[in-house]
């Protein structure tokens, strides 16, 4: 990708092929041009107001709502012929829904796919940020099931709108405090609430807490798409993303002492547990980022025949 991504998004948001005849053909990226333009405009607003949930006229996609329809709309609205796409689910390129989404993007655009972030420009993801360092070349597109971080403390959408508008996050703070007092630890698991650019609290999708620090002052653009709830929000590059916590209560990521990946030996990646069973005995851990694990294994043992 030669043109900076933001410029590309801007270019594509201001041009649209107005000829109705061209729209009757099968569209590049499936969506009709008017829909793409609308989604790009929502993305631009989201980038301009980091963390603000921009309403958009979410289209019905060939995947079910809740299965990445928001992320898919973003991918199809920003993808260009020079892009290379990587799609992961839980960190895994081989997850069946990741395969299905990738197949849709590739077949409707003809762009190449990759499993390696180094070779990719668009990375659509469900619930993980790849372990590899990402930079200006990358756009991370996160599939969001529930974009509203405050739903646990308020159900009325009118009141939620007011709370965001006035940056009134007092009840969120109270709920974190009560959590700490009752349980001794803050029990929020994934999708940890974060303050973006000192202004809006966002739901960090359900990415694990492990990934949250990667959003802070990142070099890449993160776009969050919630298709069912019809919201898009963004964390632009070089933006503060601070997990909500107290001065004397450190933010904790998922670490299990002594755990390391059985395949590549890493203890510095996000690990998922393969539990012990009566039949097969002791449990173990593996990297959730399967492609990174494969390459890491090769780095450790270059001679074992695994291709990078």
């Amino acid at each position, binding site marked *: 990708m030669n043109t900076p991504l933001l410029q590309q998004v801007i270019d594509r948001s201001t041009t649209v092929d107005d000829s109705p005849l061209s729209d009757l053909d099968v569209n590049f990226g499936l969506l009709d*041009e*008017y829909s793409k333009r609308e989604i790009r405009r929502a993305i631009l607003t989201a980038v301009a107001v980091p963390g603000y949930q921009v309403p958009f006229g979410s289209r019905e996609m060939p995947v079910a709502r809740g*299965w990445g329809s928001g992320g898919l709309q973003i991918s199809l609205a920003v993808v260009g012929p020079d892009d290379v796409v990587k799609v992961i689910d839980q960190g895994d390129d081989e997850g069946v829904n990741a395969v299905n989404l990738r197949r849709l993007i590739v077949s409707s655009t003809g762009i190449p796919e990759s499993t390696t972030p180094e070779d990719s420009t668009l990375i659509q993801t469900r619930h993980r940020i790849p372990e590899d360092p990402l930079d200006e070349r990358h756009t991370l597109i996160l599939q969001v099931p529930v974009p509203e971080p405050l739903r646990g403390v308020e159900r009325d959408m009118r009141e939620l709108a007011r709370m965001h508008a006035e940056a009134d996050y007092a009840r969120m703070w109270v709920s974190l405090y009560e959590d700490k007092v009752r349980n001794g630890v803050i029990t929020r698991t994934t999708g940890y609430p974060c303050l973006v650019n000192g202004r809006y609290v966002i739901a960090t999708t359900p990415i694990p807490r492990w990934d949250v620090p990667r959003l802070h002052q990142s070099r890449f653009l993160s776009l969050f798409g919630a298709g069912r709830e019809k919201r898009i929000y963004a964390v632009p590059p070089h933006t503060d993303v601070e997990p909500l916590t107290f001065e004397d209560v450190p933010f904790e990521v998922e670490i299990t002492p002594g755990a390391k990946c059985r395949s590549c030996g890493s203890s510095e990646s996000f690990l998922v547990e393969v539990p012990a069973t009566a039949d097969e005995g002791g449990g173990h851990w593996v990297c959730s980022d399967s492609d990174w694990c494969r390459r890491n294994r090769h780095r450790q043992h270059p001679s074992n025949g695994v291709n990078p």
Partner: protein
Amino acid sequence: MGYAAARGGLKAIEAAERLVARERALGDSSWLESKQMIEKLRLAVDRVMGEGGLWDEHLAASALRQAEGDPIEAAHLLRSYRSTLPRLAYTTPVDVDDLVVLRRIVPAFRNPPGPQLLGRTTDYTSRLLDTADETAQRTAAEKMAAFLDESASATNDFGDDSDRHGDRRPRRLLDLLRDLDAVVDRRRVDDPEPFDITRHPARPPASRSARLATMARAETGALVNVWYRNILGPDGYLHEITLGEVRHGRLPVTVVHPLTGDEISIGEVRVTEVEAIEDLNGIDEDRGRFDVGYGLCFGHNEKKAIAMANLDIACERDRGRSFLEQSILLTTDGLDASGFLEHLKLPHYVTFRSMMERKAAIRQHQERS
């Protein structure tokens, strides 16, 4: 190896697709014709068009066949198909008085203006499962057809001797109630553009047109459930309305010709239309009069149109005091609800790992203290 393994997922998906496609198209029975579904599974096709927000009986039948009879899945196929199409024109506003009725009942009066026309309905038929074979059912149906032809030549379709065309567009009960000054008048004169739910997310507080459009496209069962929850208690308490009009009929659709500027007819849609009379009894309401709720949806779907009309007036009276509007706008879409429910089948091991870790952290804290 990594590359080959990445294709493993694709192979599994393709095998699953083939399994579905094979059983759907082959099997021991004959091909399920679209025409068959349109004629004989009429209500299912109508429901798919309504929930899909697209009037096309053949596309809806194809979707229903592809979805193996699941109406929500079929509505999804229709809607995602529509996402690929540009919007080329808007129809001119339809006057619902142009509705040519196929069925019309007025429960509010014994002798309303215009006919009580039962039409094609099973409302008054005993629900006895007919297990007769095809020959027996066809023979019985032929006899009934002969009887229908006979009585039609004696009178007209209405079973009385009233003027045929005039009574196909009967005056509505609401007009009569207005003449009697028995209803409050909430008609607006500023004619705002209707809210387009396919282009903008409808969120509370929303305009009435946003609520009506949402309900017109809602999943039938979901809308009936919202209505029932509000009738029975857990969500609120709303009045049972009295039905003023229940109509099913054909409505002409026109667009403005892009070159000549003339209005031209591009066909007709079948719709169900309901007017629901509400007894106003609030302290701040005109208790000497009634109010009216409105429901209209694609196809023949009276359950949906009635629930819609009752919820329309309930929402109007609620004026944002409860969660009713939010329930209607946010929880009645079939694609939203079922898609999100079914997403639970996706792998969740990253989130679950995070939950396990916090459970361990809580236990550790409990042991320490």
